[in-house]
């Protein structure tokens, strides 16, 4: 019995030991002072959630997290709630200066670094699905990686491309671009049709398109591409594709 006691004691310590990494990882949050007459805390990140608390001018709050345009705050009394960006913007002081919490604008669109998007369209009459991610090397030039899937009646094609995209007028709301790229295309013929093997070929493409800034961090993107497939047969194949979709930057 005497030896069992210390062991029991260790069992009590076990949860503490398990929780210790959590305690060590306790986060520091940005602390700000309310400069508006008051701001209202809601129970959830949405316009319809009820207001539970009001924070007056001069009170200090911590910004715990952000979800879309909603911020979760904690007062020094420990009350937590959500506030919309519009109510916070210009109403918080941080070390004596107004904290900038604006939504992205056209300037940010022109100066974006990363962007990603989903597009749909047609590839020689077949339905086309496409996803891409891009990184801006400069305001005028970006590098993109794109994956596409064309789903036709005779075959389906999977494509992966690396593209260079040049936009001469990055500050325009509707910003045209030119693109050139290379990649691979994998063709899978329908199993119900003629016996034919899967094949993978190299492709090159040129295209043009435009991005339309919609507001916040979103844009509409449309493009047309001419694709050349270097087949192992005598003739190369040429395909045209167009697509339209939604993209966002961050």
């Amino acid at each position, binding site marked *: 019995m005497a030896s069992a006691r210390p062991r029991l004691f260790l069992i009590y310590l076990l949860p503490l030991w398990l929780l210790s990494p959590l305690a060590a990882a306790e*986060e*520091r*949050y*940005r602390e700000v002072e309310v400069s508006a007459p008051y701001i209202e805390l809601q*129970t*959830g*990140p*949405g*316009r*319809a*959630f*009820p207001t539970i608390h009001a924070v007056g001018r001069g009170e200090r709050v911590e*910004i*715990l*997290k*952000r*979800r*879309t*345009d*909603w*911020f*979760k705050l904690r007062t020094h009394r420990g009350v937590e709630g959500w506030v919309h960006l519009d109510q916070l913007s210009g109403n918080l002081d*941080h*070390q004596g200066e107004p904290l900038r919490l604006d939504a992205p604008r056209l300037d940010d669109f022109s100066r974006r670094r990363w962007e990603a998007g*989903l597009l*749909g369209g047609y590839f020689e009459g*077949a*339905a086309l*699905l496409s*996803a891409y991610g891009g990184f801006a090397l400069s305001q005028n030039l970006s590098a993109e990686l794109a994956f596409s*899937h064309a*789903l036709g009646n005779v075959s*389906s094609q999977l494509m992966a491309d690396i593209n260079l995209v040049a936009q001469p007028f990055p500050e325009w709301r509707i910003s045209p671009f030119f693109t050139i790229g290379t990649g691979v295309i994998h063709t*899978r013929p*329908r*199993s*119900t049709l003629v016996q034919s093997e899967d094949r993978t070929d190299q492709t090159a493409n040129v295209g043009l398109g435009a991005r339309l800034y919609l507001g*916040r961090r*979103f844009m509409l993107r449309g493009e047309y591409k001419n694709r050349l497939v270097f087949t192992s047969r005598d003739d190369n194949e040429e395909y045209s594709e167009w697509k339209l979709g*939604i993209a*966002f930057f961050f």
Partner: protein
Amino acid sequence: MEIRHRFLLLKSRPIRQSVGFWLLLALLPWPSLSAAGGMESGKEPVILPDLGRREIVEPEIDTEDFEISLFAGALSIEDFGTNPVYGARLDYHLSEDFFLQADAGYSRASKTSYELLSGSAQLLTDSERDFTYYNLSLGYNLLPGEVFIGKGRAFNTHLYLIGGAGNTTFAGDDHFSINLGLGYRFLLTDVFALRLDVRDHLFDSDLLGEGKTTHNIELSGGLSLFF
């Protein structure tokens, strides 16, 4: 200013004798010279200013616009029975109303009633029975709200509509497919949520001879994590 002084000195020698020159000389910024003199005399400044800048690293505001979830459920594959389905979804919340979703799922078709009755006839090979899909969809939080459990607990919820396009690979072929659905997101905490989804995956198939649009209805439940 300095360039102009030199210009004056070089160009017009007699100016050395002029009053203006001496006045200008007197107005030149001399303190630099006197400071240099101070250093020469070996006197060290009493207080060495601590010029090391204090770096204040402000914690970034944590944004949680992504949601990843794992789900399991039942998928009714048209003509091929109802079968278990597993998958994963990734959502990106564009605003409090809209979100984009990429999802992928896997199921396996069982036998058609014809295959079961005839005994030996097989419509599909073993590998052709795999049913995999992926979709790119747009969701809309139609009914955001709060539910109350017991007296002191409130949970945030969303009832959402979702629709999109994708690919379904079944019977060895890729099919362009459309999906439409309704879902329910129940936020246990700010970070974890339970999800219930009803989804219809539609695609054209001529597997049984005649071309038709098949409806493959999926019922699933999952757990998601915001990050």
